[in-house]
């Protein structure tokens, strides 16, 4: 069952109960009031008749009067006050009656009074007679020693009918109230549930891959708050998905770069081994083929090492305060041979004592940068390696990098001059590695270059 149906069901149950209880209480109260009023009226009427009759007869009749005179006077007096529903009875003998009902049969005043001992007490009877609801009020009047019973018979069926009518009206009104109320409740619930339906649809669309879908927040109730939180969640998911997509994209590019880079050396290996196997070679030719195989294998090994470094670097590294002087010394030692072979000079200038770093990784950064600088320089030119504040800088006066290439130069396998770079043993991974290491140190890599004037690479550490 849906939530709105549940809520509607609960609301309607509460509404129906409330209306029913209220109606019942009202009906019972009104019914009692009406009946009480009717009874009171009937009792007053009977009391008036009885007391007037008693007064008048006692005034007019002497105890000496003859029996027939007495009867005439009584008849006359009663007729003065009686209406067509009044009945006068004396000793089970009806003296005056204009109706078919004999009230003494239902309300025996003699017996009751003799039991309770109050002759003038008013008594009443309510009952069903001939299909009608009849109220009989009666009391006894004593006239010169004789006891008379004065009855007033009331047909109170119309009262009951009007009560029944009232009950129907209540049922009708209550029913309409319930129906109208229900319609309103359902409309209201559905209206307030609509944002939830929107939320559901949006969630469905997001699940289907529409990560940029959002919910329109229209209210500031709990549903609105939920929508806001939902949007926040969608933001987070979209952000994360984008990151993942980007990472996957980068990895795909990287892997396609790797396979592309492996193709040329692999071709050399395949062709030369095929030649060695199938062709009829002179010793000299065989040596050439073997040396090609050996050099390509070494190059593959070199590239694999760099790749491995690049990949394993993604794990966390530990930074310690290290002496920059010591770092420079190590770098100078490792590049000394390369610089000597190329006829370039390395000049260091260290104005910083300590920087937070991983000494081995930073060494490989500077060795990479220094060797790049040496390769870009002509024999006799100088490469400067400086440290100041939180910056380590490698500067050369070499051929420089074309402006269009600077932004791409840290991409894996990107080489400005591929064939020259390969001849110098470049893998296209050096600067990619440098930039990864710098990033792992939280440092920024700044590259400035001008063609034929030289290149400056700065590693700017976070303060």
């Amino acid at each position, binding site marked *: 069952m849906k939530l709105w149906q549940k809520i509607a069901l609960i609301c309607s149950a509460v509404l129906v109960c409330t209306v029913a209880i209220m109606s019942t209480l009202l009906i019972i109260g009104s019914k009692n009031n009406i009946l009480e009023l009717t009874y009171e009226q009937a009792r007053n009427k009977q009391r008036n008749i009885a007391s007037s009759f008693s007064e008048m007869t006692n005034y007019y009749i002497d105890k000496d009067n003859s029996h027939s005179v007495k009867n005439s006077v009584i008849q006359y007096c009663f007729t003065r006050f009686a209406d067509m529903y009044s009945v006068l009875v004396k000793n089970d003998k009806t003296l005056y009656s204009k109706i078919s009902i004999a009230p003494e049969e239902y309300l025996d005043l003699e017996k009751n009074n003799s039991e309770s001992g109050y002759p003038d007490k008013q008594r009443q009877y309510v009952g069903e007679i001939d299909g009608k609801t009849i109220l009989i009020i009666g009391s006894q009047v004593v006239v010169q020693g004789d006891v008379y019973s004065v009855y007033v018979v009331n047909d109170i069926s119309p009262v009951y009918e009007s009560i029944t009518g009232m009950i129907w009206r209540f049922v009708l009104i209550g029913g309409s109230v319930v129906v109208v109320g229900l319609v309103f409740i359902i409309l209201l619930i559905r209206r307030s549930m609509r944002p939830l339906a929107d939320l559901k649809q949006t969630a469905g669309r997001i699940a289907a891959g529409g990560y940029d879908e959002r919910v329109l927040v229209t209210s500031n109730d709990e549903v609105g708050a939920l929508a806001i939180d939902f949007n926040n969640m969608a933001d987070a998911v979209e952000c994360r998905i984008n990151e993942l997509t980007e990472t996957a994209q980068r990895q795909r590019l990287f892997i396609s770069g790797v396979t592309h880079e492996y193709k*040329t050396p692999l071709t*050399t290996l395949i*062709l*030369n081994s*095929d030649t060695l196997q199938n*062709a009829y070679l*002179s010793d000299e030719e065989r040596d*050439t083929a073997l040396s090609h195989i050996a050099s*390509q294998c070494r190059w593959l090994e070199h590239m694999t090492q760099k790749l491995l470094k690049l990949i394993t670097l993604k794990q966390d590294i530990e930074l310690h305060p290290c002496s920059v002087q010591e770092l420079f010394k190590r770098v100078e030692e490792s590049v000394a041979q390369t610089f000597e072979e190329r006829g370039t000079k390395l000049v260091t200038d260290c104005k910083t004592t300590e920087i937070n770093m991983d000494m081995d990784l930073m060494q490989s950064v500077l060795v990479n940068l220094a060797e790049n600088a040496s390769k870009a320089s002509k024999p006799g030119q100088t490469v400067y390696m400086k440290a100041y504040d939180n910056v380590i800088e490698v500067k050369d006066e070499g051929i420089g990098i074309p402006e269009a290439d600077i932004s791409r130069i840290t991409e894996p396998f990107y080489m400005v001059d591929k*064939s020259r770079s390969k001849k110098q043993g470049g893998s296209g991974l050096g600067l990619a590695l440098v930039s990864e290491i710098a990033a792992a140190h939280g440092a920024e890599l700044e590259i400035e270059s001008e063609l034929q004037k030289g290149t400056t690479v700065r590693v700017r550490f976070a303060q």
Partner: protein
Amino acid sequence: MAANRILIVEDDHGISDSVALNLRYVGYECTVFDNGQEAADSLSSDHAYDLALLDIMLPGIDGFELFSYMEKYDIPVIYMTAKTDSASEVKGLRDGAEDYIVKPFEIVTLLVRIEKVLKRTGRLNEVYRFHDVVVDTKNRTVLRDGAEIVLTPLEFDVLAILIKNKNRTVSREHILNEIWGENFYGDIRTVDVRIANLRKKLGLGDAIRTISKAGYRLEERKK
């Protein structure tokens, strides 16, 4: 008849050396350049090539640019490249290159492609010489010392494969595939029978060497 001349422009010496070596062995004449500009410059003085094998990533000018020079001298082009993206393949072929071979490739594949292109462009030298034997694959005739030798069609096919791959080992499977196609699973010994006949009929007893576990090789030179 002169051998087919092939121009190779490839900056990786490991590849160009090996390709040139193998092409020379099977009877092509090769000229190798490792720089696009130098190759282009050389064309003005010598452009009598039957085919050019071009790398795409070249120092100087790249393979695609070099193509216009080849077009000028009507030299068919086969690209050799590590680029596998279809965009560059399409560009290469649309510009008019005859074929496209993706690194890493095998020598056998390259030889077949070169032969196909030469044949298609009507440049293939279909007369092969081996000592005193002259094989004309177009007219399917064999001369020894000027006298015609009668070979069965299968013997001729086997001889043609051996002579086209002169100085290279050819496997029995390769011979079977070339003659009957890849879906034929015949008795590999049928090749041995043809070889024995060829040795007898053409007096090539020593020249056609059996290379154990590999196949046969028609050897021209002595070490």
